[in-house]
């Protein structure tokens, strides 16, 4: 039986390993000129090469090689001076060739690392290798009770995805994460996703499968020095699932071990609905794939000058950028964490670039807009409002044309598709009443209607002015400048604030 997480961690120490697949965003496939558009009708992006028709030969896509080297450099890897593709042989219809072109003992990039922050602690994740291969086709299993591979009557295959360049990033085993193992796994995949985005090499959409993660977990009794047998949980397809899959596998393995059982080295499948894993096929040994150098493709020997150029041209990496922004914006670690979780850096930075003060930019995105994003279940970046809109609203507030309450109404209007902030102000009539004559008339009316309160203020109870200001705000439908109204009220009643 599974063990409760905390008890599992009292008895055992986890060792993690993560294999992440990133589909590159090249225009054409890895070894042929077929398009790579996601969601195209089945078998419309296939050709003799990616269908393995007799006589067709592969040629490597230079952009895919370049992107892989850039990924390696961003992950602090060494770049191979010379390496080859290899055939990974297996009989499974997701590849029409009966092998996948991959890399075996000569990856393009190796021995790197990436640092992630978890719970105020920096954890260094060592990268073993980054290699380039081709993605497989997509199988749909038909018949049987579950629609899953087991028990299916037959399968139907779409090869549009077969041959899209796929980069596999493999960590070295990660011991020492202890209770934070699930969070470390998630933080690592999150960091990879941001690095890929900053490099512009992939759209890294987990829900579309362009970023996929296999999670290896093993347990050893506390104090032991020898690692336990690991399992590999396949295709974990959201950041939250990465965390859940590690946790669930720790609980399951601890239960098996505590009952005196043994962990079987196997592939397991993660189920989103239950958050648990079930046994898949038993894992084939590496030698069963009968790897050998790919005879149809000549070796790759990246020119060191080219690699140096690519390295010099790397963009600012996300961790460096976060440190810079934190210093520039004067934010606390907690604020930064909240912005990280909300995926708000790009938006706030763009808003600041459009002229808004950092504090205001952050206030709107992390307040009103984050709330709206949560309510509607939309990513912040997908809200129908731009950084320029927010910058304009902060400008209108700073100039005194809007107060916070009116600014919120303007945002609401923009989100509802009523136009730019200025158009919403115009259409909804949201300007602050700056006309002294108009404001003065409203105040006179309020004073007349609230004679008691006015008398109290005259007799020195300044606090009673609050009710009068409230009355002015109501009478002006929120469009008066409250501070100016208060000033005028006190003047009219012959007292000084």
């Amino acid at each position, binding site marked *: 039986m599974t063990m409760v997480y905390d008890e599992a961690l009292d008895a055992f120490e986890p060792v993690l390993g993560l294999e992440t697949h990133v589909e590159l965003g*090249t*225009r*054409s496939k890895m070894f*042929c*000129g*077929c*398009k790579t558009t996601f969601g195209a*009708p*089945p*078998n*419309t*992006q*296939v*050709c*003799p090469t990616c*269908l393995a*028709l007799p006589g067709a030969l592969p*040629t*490597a*896509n*230079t*952009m*895919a*090689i370049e992107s892989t080297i850039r990924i390696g450099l961003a992950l602090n890897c060494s770049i191979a001076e*010379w390496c*080859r593709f290899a055939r990974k*042989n*297996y*009989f*499974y*219809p997701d590849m029409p060739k009966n092998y996948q072109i991959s890399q075996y003992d000569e990856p393009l990039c190796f021995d790197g690392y990436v640092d992630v922050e978890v719970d105020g602690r920096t954890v260094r994740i060592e990268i073993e290798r980054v290699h380039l291969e081709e993605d497989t086709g997509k*199988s749909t*299993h*038909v018949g049987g009770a579950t629609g899953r*591979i*087991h*028990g*299916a*009557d*037959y*399968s*139907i*295959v*779409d*090869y549009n995805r077969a041959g899209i360049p796929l980069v596999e990033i493999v960590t070295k085993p990660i011991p020492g994460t202890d209770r934070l193992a699930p969070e470390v796994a998630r933080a690592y995949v999150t960091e990879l996703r941001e690095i890929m985005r900053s490099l512009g090499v992939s759209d890294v959409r987990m829900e579309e499968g362009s970023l996929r993660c296999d999670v290896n977990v093993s347990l050893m009794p506390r104090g032991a020095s020898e690692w336990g047998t690991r399992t590999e949980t396949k295709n974990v397809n959201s950041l939250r699932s990465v965390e859940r899959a590690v946790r669930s596998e720790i609980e399951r393995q601890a239960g098996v071990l505590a009952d005196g059982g043994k962990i079987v080295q196997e592939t397991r499948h993660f189920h989103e609905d239950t958050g648990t894993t079930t046994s898949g*096929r*038993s894992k*084939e040994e590496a030698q*069963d794939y*009968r790897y*050998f*150098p790919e*005879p149809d*493709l*000549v*070796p*790759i*020997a*990246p*020119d060191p000058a080219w690699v140096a150029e690519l390295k010099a041209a790397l963009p600012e990496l996300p961790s460096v950028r976060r440190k810079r922004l934190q210093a520039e914006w004067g934010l606390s670690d907690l604020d930064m964490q909240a912005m990280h979780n909300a995926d708000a850096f790009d938006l706030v930075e763009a808003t600041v670039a459009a002229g808004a003060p950092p504090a205001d930019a952050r206030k709107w995105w992390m307040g009103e807009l984050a709330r709206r994003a949560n309510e509607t279940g939309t990513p912040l970046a997908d809200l129908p409002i731009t950084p320029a809109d927010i910058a304009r609203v902060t400008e209108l507030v700073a100039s005194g044309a809007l107060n916070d309450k009116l600014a919120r109404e303007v945002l609401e209007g923009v989100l509802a598709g009523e136009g730019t902030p200025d158009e919403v102000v115009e259409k909804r009539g949201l300007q602050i009443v700056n006309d002294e004559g108009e404001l003065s008339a409203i105040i006179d009316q309020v004073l007349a209607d609230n004679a008691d309160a006015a008398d109290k203020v005259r007799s020195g109870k300044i606090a009673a002015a609050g009710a009068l200001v409230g009355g002015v705000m109501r009478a002006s439908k929120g469009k008066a400048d409250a501070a100016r109204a208060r000033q005028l009220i006190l003047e009219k009643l012959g007292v000084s604030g």
Partner: protein
Amino acid sequence: MSAITRDEVAHLARLSRLALTGDELDHYATQLDAIIEAVAKVAEVAAEDVPPSSHALPLTNVFRADEVRQSLTPELALAGAPAVEDDRFRVPRILGEEA
């Protein structure tokens, strides 16, 4: 000296999805043995100064630009398929032996 065993042939047959009879296992074990012995002769002549080679031509870095080219139509792509369903290749059940 290699001496391929019957079990090794059976394992290879399973990976290759081939159903072999007992007689065939023995038959191929002998043949594979002969092939491996023949290939092993290369090792006898390979001296220290002869680097292992995987490719016939001394070429590296043969790349193509990242340019889209015309794909086949689905009709053409599927024309040679033994079975088709929903514009996809229909294949026999996968993992039947492990279900």
